[in-house]
């Protein structure tokens, strides 16, 4: 069993016991909420695992490390930032993708850039954002976050 599993299992057991001793009803309500969230994400999650498994088979690691690895330079950041800005991938699905990319030789800096643009920049949802904030503000926010994402990637790369 991975250390991850051990950490999450022990933490959830400890919290459950404490919560149960404090308030039985609340604890059960919490379990129910957690279960519903898990149920909602299970199907898309399984699908993305299939997609990743297929892609990992067909895309050679050498290709990933060439374009997204530590020595990919500006090209790597550009690919990560643009794909991250355009793609509309739910957060929880992006993590196994990111982990897969790192396994195959992508650098932390580039994965951090990809993740950050994915989370903070939304080209596809821009029309919706404009309805709330207006054109000028929505575009400004996205542009600022685009560059912030690259800065975040660079700093993460330097630290890790």
């Amino acid at each position, binding site marked *: 069993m*991975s250390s*991850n599993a051990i*950490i*999450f*299992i022990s*933490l*959830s057991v400890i919290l*459950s016991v404490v*919560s149960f001793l404090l308030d039985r009803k*609340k*604890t059960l*309500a*919490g379990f*129910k*909420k*957690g*279960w519903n*969230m*898990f149920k909602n994400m299970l*199907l898309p*999650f399984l*699908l993305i*695992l*299939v997609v*990743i*498994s297929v892609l990992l*088979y067909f895309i050679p690691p050498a290709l990933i490390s060439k374009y997204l690895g530590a020595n990919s330079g500006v090209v790597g950041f550009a690919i990560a930032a643009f794909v991250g800005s355009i793609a509309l991938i739910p*957060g*929880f699905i992006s*993590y*196994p993708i*990111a*982990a*897969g990319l*790192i396994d195959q030789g992508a650098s*932390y800096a580039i*994965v*951090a850039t990809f993740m*950050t643009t994915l*989370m*903070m920049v*939304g080209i596809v*949802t821009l029309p*919706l*954002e404009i*309805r*709330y*904030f*207006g054109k000028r*503000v929505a575009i*400004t*926010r996205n542009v*600022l*976050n685009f560059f*912030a994402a690259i800065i*975040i990637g660079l*700093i*993460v790369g330097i*630290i*890790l």
Partner: protein
Amino acid sequence: MKNVLKKYQSYIWLGAYAILTILSFIFGFNPGKQIFTNFTQSFIEMITFIPFLFIIVGLFDVWVPKEQIQKHIGQESGIKGMVLVILLAMLQAGPLYGAFPVAYMLFKKGASIKNIFIYLGAFASMKIPMLGIEIGYLGIKFSLVRTLVSLPLFIGIGYLMEWYLKDKDFRISDGSGGR
């Protein structure tokens, strides 16, 4: 209706994958077998921590008084106001566009421009359920570094937006249509 269709779609794809995998094993099609091995590995990785993460998230949800925090937001200013919006953002779930209505609510309640954009930043990259999954997949070190590097940057964006919009009659609409 759209949701129902979407749900079916996932089942169809998964079913198709299952059939192709079974066929791969029957006919000894190696790529299919290899892909299934990849899938099993990532599935085991997922199933050994994600359900427990959701137990933690569910308990969090019932014990942390989200409404209470929401009530105080907007009235508080300074560091306290900033900490409160970040906290509120961390307790949410869902995609960024789900935060726009909340931004509208914050605006209505008189939150500062700075805090509204800090909320969006924290919502995008520091939600607790997402941090849990991130730690599970990319490790605590990556998550910690990424979060700590991101935080000052989106606080900076908050200040920048406030400075930029100060005299520009900034307003957030309820998203129902034109401005």
